[in-house]
């Protein structure tokens, strides 16, 4: 079991949801996050004065999949949210030790 965590541009969320839905992924959690990478924020103008926005709004999507799905999911994320421009985000893969579905008590792969 692996957790796939993708930090993406907010306007790409719908594409991502649709893409993962096509793979039969049944659940995900998203959060509104802020951050910067090599892009280092951007400048905006307010009443004639320029200022740097250091932390740019992004969406973090988290979903947990079976081990054999990891590569397919990563490919799907790449194909659905890549714009080719700076600030497209990153994907992290993290091992999961245990899962438990609260309603039924099912565990691990049965609970995905």
């Amino acid at each position, binding site marked *: 079991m692996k957790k796939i965590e993708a930090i993406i541009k907010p306007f790409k969320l719908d594409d991502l949801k649709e893409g993962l839905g096509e793979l039969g992924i049944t659940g995900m959690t998203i959060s509104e996050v802020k951050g910067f990478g090599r892009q280092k924020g951007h400048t905006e103008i307010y*009443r004639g004065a320029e*200022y740097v926005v250091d932390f740019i709004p992004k969406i973090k999507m988290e979903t947990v999949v079976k081990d054999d799905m990891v590569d397919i999911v990563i490919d799907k994320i790449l194909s659905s949210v890549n714009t080719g421009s700076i600030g497209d985000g990153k994907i992290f893969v993290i091992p999961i030790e245990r899962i438990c579905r609260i309603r039924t008590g099912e565990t691990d792969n049965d609970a995905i």
Partner: protein
Amino acid sequence: MKKVAWALALFFTIPVTAMAGEDVVNTITSNKEAIDLLQGNLNYVWTLIAACLVFFMQAGFAMVESGFTRAKSAVNIMMKNLMDFSMGSIAFWAIGFGLMFGTSGTGWFGTDGFFLSGWEGPDGDQWVLAFWMFQCVFAATAATIVSGAVAERTKFSGYLIYSIVLCAFIYPVFGSWAWGSLLNGGGWLEGLGFIDFAGSTVVHSIGGWAALAGAIVSGPRLGKYGKNGEVRAIPGHNIPMAAIGVFILWLGWFGFNPGSTTTGDSSIAMIFVTTNLSAAAGAICAMFTSWIMFKKPDIGMSLNGALAGLVGITAGCANVSPSSAIIIGAISGVLVVLSVVTIDKMHIDDPVGAISVHGVCGAWGTLAAGLFNMGGTNVKIITTQLIGIGAAFVWAFGAAFILFKVIDMTIGLRISKEDEMMGVDITEHGAHAYNDFQTLN
């Protein structure tokens, strides 16, 4: 059905029989008296409707000011706007109105009519009440201009003292110089022939120059200027709210300028038109100026431009033509953008642009009222306008500077660094404007 018919018949016969009973002979004199009475009543209604519109400008100011500042200061701005009107009303009732419109032997201030003592009771002439109500909302407008310029960094208690002194003393004394004769007074400035129909100078410049003094004495907000003197933006937290505030102010100005006739007659039509055209030209020209200077049409500057056009036409709204009003507004719109940028570069932190909108464009509007006068212009008119502009600056900036310095030395004007970082809402009022939302910055 029969009952209704009976009721109707009764209803129509009563007045007829009543009139037939009296032996009324209409003469030219009685007709004139009736017409005068009607006109008098209309003047009351128009003046008080206009007072409502000007009162609503308080809401506009509150929204513009809190929209242009950070979320952590919104409670404080709302409290300041509520209290400068409330405290200002009482102060203007007790002292200000008498100083402004009482009998003036010297031409420098009025000496009677304090505590509305000019009112003859419910059976006497009621005009002084209608006039007081209209003038009271004007005094509060002058007071509330300062609130935005000293936002996010000043003590609430210091602001309360300022708003009492402005409405009781600083605003009415200058007002008596220019407008005293509207009731019982008479000032030296109006004696010279000074033109300021609705208060570009009397209300707006006075507020604007007091705002300048407040912003200088309280100093810039933390982080507004960098170590090397670079200007940093501190973006406002709610631009749509600021925009609605400007629309409300624009609406309120239809009471502010046409209402200053205090007469319900046809002259208000032209004043509506000059007021509207100048505001429109101000917004357009501020937008293009910001577009050229910053590569994008800036919302904050365009909103300030509309207000600049409104302030600019306030002095001359009754004595310049509609086409002159467009020129006055257009110049106001350019002027306000240049002024905001310049004042920022001078390291005077005015989060909402109050000094530029009210002080600078108020001065320009007063000069323009002389330049574009429909009755013709000459050196004497221009000189008088310049004397009025200069007197307003010296008096309002001087008196407010001393006032803010005294507040600073006694109870303190500026809040501590830690308090400022926490935000005035929490440290001065113990409250959040937006509960359940996390406020960054």
